[in-house]
C-alpha cells in the first residue's frame, strides 16, 4: 500500500513536469540570451539552450548606461506607487461603505463597480486619449497616474468588499457601544483586522499598474515619460537590427520588481487571484 502511494506520487510529479517546463522555459531562455556573448548568440551552429562560450554582463551594462532604461524604470515606479496608493485608499473607503453601510443607492453603486471592473481597457483608450489631451497632460506620466485608478479602484473595491464582509459586525458594534465613533471603530478595530486584505489589494494594484501596457503606449511617447514596458518594447527596437541581448536584458530587469514582490508574497497572490474572480 505504501509503495503504491509512493509510485502514484512520483507519477504525478512526472506528469507535472511538462507544465513546469512550459511555464518556466521562456524565462530561462530570456535570461540565458541576456547573458550570452554576441558571438555565440548569433552563431547558428551553437546550441541555443546553453551558454558554452562564457557568460557576459555586457548587455546589461549597455542597457543601463547607454539607454534611458533607468529613467523608464523610475517613471514606472513613480506611476505605480502613486496610482496604487491613491487607488487602495479610494477603494478601501468605498468597499467599507458597500459592505457595511446602508444608504440610498448602495446596491446600484455596487453593481456599477462590478460592471466597471469588467470593462476592458482596450475599449476606452481612444476616447481617454482625447480626455488626456483636453486636460493638457498628453505625453506625460501624470496621464498614467490619473488613468490607472480607473481599473485599479474597481478591482480593489471588489476585493476589499469580500474582506470587510468577513469581519463580524459585532466587533465593530461593541466598540461603538463603548463610546467610539464609527470612524474610530473603522480605524482602530476593523482596518487592523483587514490588513491581509489591504496588503493583497496593494500587491495586486502594484502588479496591475506595473504591467499595464496599452494606456502607457497610447498616452506617453517621449523617452523621458514612458514606462519600462513601453521603453523596452519600443525604444530598444530601432530599424531592422535587433539587439537581442540588450532586449532580453531589458525584459528581465523590467520584471525584477514584480518577481521580488512575488517571491515574498506568493500566498497573497494566490488568495487574491481567486478572490478577485470568485467573490
Amino acid at each position, binding site marked *: 500500500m505504501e509503495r503504491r502511494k509512493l509510485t*502514484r506520487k512520483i507519477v504525478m510529479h512526472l506528469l507535472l513536469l511538462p507544465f513546469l517546463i512550459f511555464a518556466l522555459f521562456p524565462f530561462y531562455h530570456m535570461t540565458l540570451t541576456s547573458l550570452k556573448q554576441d558571438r555565440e548568440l548569433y552563431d547558428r551552429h551553437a546550441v*541555443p539552450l546553453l551558454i558554452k562560450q562564457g557568460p557576459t554582463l555586457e548587455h546589461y551594462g549597455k542597457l543601463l548606461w547607454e539607454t534611458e532604461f533607468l529613467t523608464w524604470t523610475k517613471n514606472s515606479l513613480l506611476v505605480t506607487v502613486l496610482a496604487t496608493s491613491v487607488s487602495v485608499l479610494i477603494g478601501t473607503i*468605498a468597499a467599507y461603505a458597500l459592505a457595511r453601510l446602508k444608504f440610498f443607492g448602495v446596491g446600484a453603486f455596487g453593481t456599477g463597480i462590478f460592471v466597471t471592473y*469588467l470593462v*476592458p481597457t*482596450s475599449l476606452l483608450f481612444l476616447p481617454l486619449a482625447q480626455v488626456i489631451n483636453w486636460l493638457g497632460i498628453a505625453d506625460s506620466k501624470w496621464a498614467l497616474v490619473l488613468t490607472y485608478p480607473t481599473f485599479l479602484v474597481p478591482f480593489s473595491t471588489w476585493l476589499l468588499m469580500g474582506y470587510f464582509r468577513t469581519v463580524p459586525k459585532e466587533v465593530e458594534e461593541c466598540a461603538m457601544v463603548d463610546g467610539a465613533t464609527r470612524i474610530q471603530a473603522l480605524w482602530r478595530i476593523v482596518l487592523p483586522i483587514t490588513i491581509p486584505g489591504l496588503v493583497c489589494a496593494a500587491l495586486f494594484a502594484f502588479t496591475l499598474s506595473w504591467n499595464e501596457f496599452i494606456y502607457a503606449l497610447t498616452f506617453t511617447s517621449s523617452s523621458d515619460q514612458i514606462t519600462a514596458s513601453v521603453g523596452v518594447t519600443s525604444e530598444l527596437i530601432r530599424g531592422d537590427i535587433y539587439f537581442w541581448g540588450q532586449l532580453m536584458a*531589458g*525584459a528581465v530587469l523590467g520584471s525584477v520588481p514584480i518577481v521580488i514582490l512575488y517571491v515574498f508574497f506568493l500566498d497573497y497572490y494566490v488568495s487574491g*487571484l481567486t478572490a478577485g474572480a*470568485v467573490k
Partner: protein
Amino acid sequence: MAIGTLPVATQARLPWRARLSELLDRETFLGPAFITPAMILILLLVAYPFCMAVYFSLSNAFIGRPSQFIGFTNFVRLWDSDAFRQTFQNAFVFTSIAIAFKLVLGMILSLLLNEQLWFKRLIRGVVLLPWVIPTALSTLGWWWMFNSLYSVVNWTGIALGIMDPPGPNWLGQRYYAMAAVIIVNVWRGLPFFVITILAGLVAIPKDLYEAAESDGANAWYRFWYVTLPMLKPVLAIVVLFSTIFTFSDFNIVYVLTHGGPINSTHLFATYSRMIGLESGRIGEGAAVSLYLFPLLAFVVWFQLRFVRKQAY
C-alpha cells in the same frame, strides 16, 4: 485617543467638531461620502469616455478636425471591409481555441496540483509565474523564441526530429502566426484557470468522494459525476471572465505580430488602435472597439443574473 483630547485644547471649535463627528456617525451621510471619490472617478474617466466612444463611433471624427454625426456609417463600412471581417473572424478563432486549451489544460493541471506533492509551494509558484510578469516583456521573450533565424522552438523541434529543417517561419505565415499568438495567450492565461479551479476543487466536500467510492465508483466516474458537477459554477465564472479578457487582448498580438502577416492575427483592440491612432480615423477606430460591446454586455448580464445571485 488623540481625537478625544483635541477638543479640550480648542474649546471654541467644539460645536463644529461635534457636529462633524455626529454627521460621520450617520450611515446616510458617511456612506455617500465614502463612495464619492470612487464615483467621481468612474463617472469622469470611465462613463464619460464610454459615451464619447459611442459618439465617436457615430461620427466621422478624425484627429485634429471637427466631426459630424454620420449615423451607423462606420459600423456598416467596417462590416463591408475585408480587413475588419478578418479581424472579426480572428477574434472568434483566437478566443475559442485559446479558452478551450486553457480550460482543458487548467483542469488537468489543477487536478495534479490537488494531489499530495513535494515542494507544493514552489510548484504553485512556478505555475503562477507567467501571470505576474509584465505581459509585454514576457511576450518579447516569446518573440525571440519564434524568431525566423534563431528560433529555439524550431531548433528543439529539429533536434527532437519533430520538424523538418528549417522549420516554420512562425510569425511570417498566417496560420502559424495565429498558432503562436494562441500559444502565448494560453501560456499567460493558464495560471488564472488553474488557481481558480484549484480553489473550487479544495471546496468540494470530501464525504462526497467517500460516498461515491463506497458505491463502487472508479476514478473516472468520481471525476465525471462528483468533481465536474461541483465545479460547474467555478468553471462558468472562469470561462466568462476569460472570454472578456481574451477577446479584448492587446499586448500579445501587438508585441508578437502587430496584427500581421496581412491582418491575419489582428484582434479588435489592435485593429482599433491601428485605425484610430495610426491612421487617425478616430470614429472608425471607436466603432471597431465597440464591436466588443455586445459580448461585454452579455457577460455582465449573465454574471449579474446568475453568478452573483448564487453568491449572496
